[in-house]
């Protein structure tokens, strides 16, 4: 389990992470979304022992991460900006990983490279951007990590390969019980993969929730009444929180947070002319959630 408490990281005057706290349970795929400069990469660098936190703590299985070989041995990291040894082939990189990671599985490396049709004897510098990312992912997964961290991993992959890589990650999580943390500035990238999602904004974790919960706890209500009404009419309905309210003529559209059946029953009790409950996309959920917190985002 990864536990982060009051994690703070500053770069001179700039606060990249500001007292972040969260818990990432074993066997889950944790997505972290945020705009550029939100602190996603910094967060991952701390979780992978690259950076040392200025304040707070980040632990894996109760142990500090920074400069701790035992913990780092359980971790694989595919950064946003990839690095390969000059002129190296995948085989050469595999040799390097073997020297460093005791659990590096050569068979798995060969198998994954073969599945993704990558030539392990060809210099990586001749690979396309997407192929390089695949190569880095293969090398990371071949270390048989318990915790895998991907920073903007799907960037540069074509849709087919993106799904393929996602399926490999999911296999690791399901088959080996690994935990994956994936960051992206695109919510759509994470929507169908992650169990949990967190929203990072200007160094702060402003939202963290189970995806299923997010999707079911918020929904759009379309309602119309014969008489004149306004938002106040619904304010006192128990268990229902209006995140957004727009009224055109007699029809009102509301983004509501609450227990779906209870809200439906309460609304029907008001005898509306028109009543409908519509599901929200994850993007809409995030937009309204963050708007309720006073933030405005443009999710890609």
């Amino acid at each position, binding site marked *: 389990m990864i536990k982060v408490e009051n994690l703070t990281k500053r770069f*001179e005057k700039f606060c990249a992470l500001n007292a972040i706290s969260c818990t990432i349970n074993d066997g889950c795929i944790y997505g972290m979304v945020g705009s550029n400069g939100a602190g996603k990469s910094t967060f991952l660098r701390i979780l*992978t022992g*690259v*950076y040392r936190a200025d304040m707070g703590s980040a*632990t894996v299985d109760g*142990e500090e991460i920074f*400069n701790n*070989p035992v913990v780092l041995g359980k971790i694989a990291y595919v950064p946003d*900006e990839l690095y390969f040894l000059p002129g190296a082939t995948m085989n050469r990189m595999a040799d390097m990983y073997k020297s*460093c990671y005791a659990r590096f599985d050569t068979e798995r490396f060969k198998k994954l490279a073969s599945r993704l049709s990558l030539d392990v004897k060809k210099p990586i510098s001749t690979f396309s951007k997407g192929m390089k990312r695949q190569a880095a992912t293969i090398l990371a997964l071949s270390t048989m990590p318990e915790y895998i961290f991907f920073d903007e991993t799907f960037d540069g992959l074509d849709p087919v390969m993106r799904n393929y890589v996602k399926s490999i990650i999911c296999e690791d999580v399901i088959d080996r019980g690994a935990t994956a943390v994936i960051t992206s500035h695109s919510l759509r990238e994470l929507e169908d993969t992650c169990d949990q999602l967190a929203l990072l904004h200007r160094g702060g974790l402003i939202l963290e929730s189970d995806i299923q919960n997010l999707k079911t706890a918020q929904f759009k209500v379309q309602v119309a009444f014969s008489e004149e009404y306004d938002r106040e009419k619904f304010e006192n309905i128990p268990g229902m929180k209006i995140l957004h309210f727009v009224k055109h003529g007699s029809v009102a559209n509301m983004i509501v947070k609450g227990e779906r059946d209870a809200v439906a029953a309460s609304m029907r009790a008001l005898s509306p002319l028109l009543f409908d409950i519509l599901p929200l996309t994850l993007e809409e959920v995030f937009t309204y959630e963050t708007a309720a917190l006073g933030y405005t985002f443009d999710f890609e």
Partner: protein
Amino acid sequence: MKNNTKHKEIWSFGLYKESLRRLKIPAVIFFVIIAAAAVLIPLLKFFSGPQYIHLSCTSDYLPRMTAVNANPFLLVCMIAALTLTYTLFSFQNKRSSSDLYFSQPHSRLAMYTSRITALVTVIASMILIPTGISAAMFAILKQHFNTQWDTFIPYMAGCFAAAMLICAVFAIAMSITGTILNNIVVAGLIMYLPRTVLTLVVASVCSKFPLIVDGYISKFLSPGINILTGFLEIFLSTNFYDKGILSSSAQGYTFCLALVYFVIGAVLFCRRKSESAERAAPTPFMQSVYRILITMVVCLIPCGLIFNTDQIGSYEIFVIFCYYIIALLVYLFYELITTRKWKNLVKCLPGLVVVVLLNATLLGTMFGIYLAEKGFSPDTEDISYVRIEYDRKSLIAGYGNYIDDQLNKLKITDPEALDTVSKVLDRCIEYSETLPYYPMMRYTDEYGNAHYYKECIVEIKAGSKIKYRTLYFRQDELDHIDSIIESSEAYKDIWLTLPEADSGSIIFDDGYGSLDYGRYEELFDTLRTEIASLDLAVWKKYINNPPADNVPIKFVHDGRIISIPVSAWGLPESAAMIAEIRTENSLISPEEMYNILRNGEFGPNKNINILSATYVRANGTIRDLSNTTVSLHDCIDTEAELNVKNGYLLFKILKLKSDNYTEHGDLISYVYLPINEKGIDRYKGDGNGIYGIK
């Protein structure tokens, strides 16, 4: 929170192996260069040099081959050290590589030590193996070179120590900077700035107070003590190698400094922030430190000028002002090129206050040292002893110099002598302030004749302090001190005790033959005993004016060749023993000589240049054949053979090398060597002719 596994890993074999793999290509390139030189240099020297007959000889006459001459390319290992260190530590300069390496499951310490041990392995191999090859080559060609085997290990040690220091300095520099430019700049600062400041302070103080003897202040203040800074002396001195890279004290100091830097490097590497990659300095504070230090390099010049200029006029002010303007430009320019932000030029201006303070501190330190040194003027009763070094101008080279050295080392405690030195010191301090013509250098006697003072280096111990001063004595003052010394037992001991000879160094008649060296040691013991039994006045008279028919006995003591002329007129026992040994020293047999000349490398029509050769006539006198060219032709024909059988070796002298009017090939005369009586005594050469046929 569990954290007990965190710091246990101090080294990793996996990382070590990976580091070696990373170094493979550059290491092989450097190795090939050095190893190729190790093979080619001996061959080139062999083929480009003259062809030597070497049959059996003392190696003194062969070309001297030190390890440095044998493979100067070994110094390339220093460039290799820089390149290899950069290869292993440059990942810190790039964010992506920094992320990759620092996320590896190893402690920072293990990352550092594994890399350093890989560097040490590669560099040690790069030095050891080619030196082994070099040694093997010269062992194969041993008949043609006088290989100085004792220089091989010091040379390797010197190269290794210097290479280690380069590795350590760059490891530090790369741990505290994040760009190539700053890697180099900071490495240069670490390597040279402390020594430059030290040298400036010492040189300036010595210049302002000329009584200080700079070479005697401390060995550690000499730039040569650090092999890398000592390299600067290459431009000033031709024998740097002997002083620097082969000096055990320089090697020891350099290696210890490298170890200290490795430890500092380890601490800094462990504290390295990955985010420092691609940044000139890890923090704004460190950026200021680098900027200020770079500026201080320029400021050293005006500081030296201010300190050394006694009267600062408008010209001096202008020059100093110009240097400070340059320093300011360097300060601003460094900030601009490292951060590439114009707005930082204003932000960095407060740092100039630190520059000013550092300049003031440096000047204050120099003036402080100057005043403290000048203030050393002990009273006679406070002086424990003095030691006076000056050129006593002994007439006999070697032995006389040895005596002078011993007298220079003599600690004088006589109160009268101490009083004289104390007064001379006071006088010199007083005169030292009068520039530019020090009155202490010249004086006028009562008759109006000008005399120069005698310059002496004096060691003065007063209390716990030992100071060295260049003092200027009048001749009568020195004579007075010398008369005190000469009446002492120590003086007599110095003259009558011949020093020990270094192992294997005793020779006479310009070499020793196949005789047991023990006979030479016996001769030397006889000589020492005989000298010790002599009257001092008799011995001094003999040694200052030895008889012409002497045989010099040479030996090496403490690196100095000492020659004692032995004659039956002064040292009868030793002379008798020499005659005995000469008779025992069976020289070459006629048959052997004939076979050498006929069957050796020289054909019937070849000539041999005899650079120096003598033979002993039947009557015992010595005939000198030096600088002659002889034809071997007659040695191998029937007549010569007959001559050999009849007890003569016939040489046809074609040319006297010293005779410019004789054409090569003209017959001058025949020389018959009467080999059946005393034998051919000895041949020798200096690199252009026959070497040691014996």
